[in-house]
């Protein structure tokens, strides 16, 4: 078997998602090639070459791939991917964007969001917001897969794969990048943080998230939010943890002022340890929490921060 992993990166550096997708590829078994498609993405490619288990890194360095536009990247991946038995990418907003395009161009199904590899053609994936897990078997000649990265542990950076540059420039010419508003934060990204503290509607406004940030800074944690807090405009959408936001599984998840709607639980219930702080003893979040504290968050969170 030959597996093509599409790297997740921002041109400058490789994202930890890639380490996890390579881990899934390792479980499938076979020769693993990583494709780094971007513009001036040499550094990301050098890191990819260090990932344990990777035999080869292909670099497609061209302006057409700078912003990971699905129209261009989809063509490149479909073109290269036809020579592989598996094509894997992270189930990130980038992977979800371009990979179904490549699958359709190759006339094969996509298996979204796998959480387990049972065999090279058999995988487990959640559906119905994680309320059911399906084991599915693919009969396609090329298995196109997105990987739920929270379900796999990163591979180490102990390898030294060969790096090969290819001359590719798939520019579909039908879309262009206008601009972006990226959240700049010193704190770890939700996808890779080992501790996450999240706030819900109980935070009352965006300014009060400062309370959570104080705790986060003491613990080296990422800060998340429930859909209710995002919909109320307290914090930006990229902080949302849940079925339609980010799916996380840190070592410690602290839910503050979050009631625990199914939508939110779907995004964090695989965390190793869950703490809930809520003044409503009936809040459903307590039914999944390892440690529950019935308290007013405006008392408990500052106290927590001062005692850590």
């Amino acid at each position: 078997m030959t597996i093509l992993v599409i790297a997740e990166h921002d041109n400058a550096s490789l994202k930890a998602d890639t380490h996890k997708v390579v881990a899934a590829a390792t479980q499938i078994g076979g020769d693993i090639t990583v494709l780094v498609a971007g513009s001036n993405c040499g550094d990301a490619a050098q890191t990819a070459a260090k990932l344990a288990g990777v035999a080869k890194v292909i670099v497609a360095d061209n302006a057409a791939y700078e912003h990971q536009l699905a129209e261009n990247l989809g063509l490149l991946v479909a073109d290269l991917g036809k020579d592989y038995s598996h094509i894997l990418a992270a189930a990130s907003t980038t992977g979800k964007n371009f990979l179904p395009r490549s699958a359709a161009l190759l006339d094969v199904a996509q298996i979204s969001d796998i959480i387990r590899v049972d065999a090279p053609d058999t995988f487990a994936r959640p559906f119905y917001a994680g309320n059911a897990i399906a084991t599915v078997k693919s009969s396609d000649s090329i298995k196109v897969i997105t990987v739920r990265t929270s379900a796999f542990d990163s591979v180490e950076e102990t390898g030294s794969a060969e790096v090969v540059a290819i001359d590719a420039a798939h520019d579909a010419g039908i879309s262009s990048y206008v601009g972006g508003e990226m959240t700049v934060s010193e704190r770890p990204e939700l996808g890779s943080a080992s501790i996450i503290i999240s706030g819900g509607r109980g935070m009352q406004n965006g300014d009060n998230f400062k309370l959570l940030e104080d705790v986060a800074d003491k613990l080296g944690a990422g800060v998340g939010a429930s859909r209710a807090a995002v919909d109320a405009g307290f914090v930006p959408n990229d902080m949302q943890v849940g079925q339609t936001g980010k799916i996380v599984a840190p070592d410690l998840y602290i839910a503050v002022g979050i009631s625990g709607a199914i939508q939110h639980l779907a995004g964090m219930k695989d965390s190793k340890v869950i703490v809930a702080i809520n003044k409503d003893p009936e809040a459903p979040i307590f039914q999944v929490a390892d440690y529950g504290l019935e308290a007013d968050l405006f008392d408990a969170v500052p106290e927590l921060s001062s005692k850590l």
Partner: protein
Amino acid sequence: MKILVPIKRVVDYNVKVRVKSDNTDVDLSNLKMSINPFCEIAVEEAVRLKEAGVATEVVVVSIGEKACQEQIRTALALGADRGIQIETSEKVQPLSVAKLLHKVVEEEQPQIVLLGKQTIDGDNNQTGQMLAALAGMPQGTFASEVKVDGDKVQVTREVDGGLVTVELNLPAVVTTDLRLNEPRYASLPNIMKAKRKPIVVKTPEELGVEITTNLEVLKVESPASRSAGVMVESVDQLIEKLRNEAKVI
């Protein structure tokens, strides 16, 4: 400008589904069914584009048994002009859905195909992207803002690190995220009016599409359940437990 809005009938988002005891599937018998929430947002956006004078016609299409006409009627009551039902009793996987929709796109020639980013049953998040690839159209996925400008559309997309705006040549595919809009409630007069709006029924055979199933479901299970832990009395006790019992800080 014509907008095509593909929609799906799914179990209502307030219902928590259970796995059948024989582990073959989830049990949907006697559950409330609704229009998929992301599809409803797509219908709302299309109707708003029509109200703003950008679009002239909104056509809704759904694939499934006759019961899905209920959801087409819901979309018509929200302001769509006419419906198409593609009649099939099969469970159609995203690639085949995209092929069926591609045929409808060829017949209807819409300038924008607006659809939900994913359904809350399959959670696949594939159909819009696959349709765009088959039709050779650009795509603006996970949209939180859609602005049509001449023969282009600007789409602001919700991505992992924040927001990204792309400009797409028309015709284009746009998939909706939660914050694009808040769908209206259909008024009683509009519900009555929707009953007289036309719905055309077609079959996959008429469209020349063979429905294939490349993914076989071997079994369906409930996720590992989490049980409630302990309640702590104070912040001090919480910190003590996290340090010494769970050893996570």
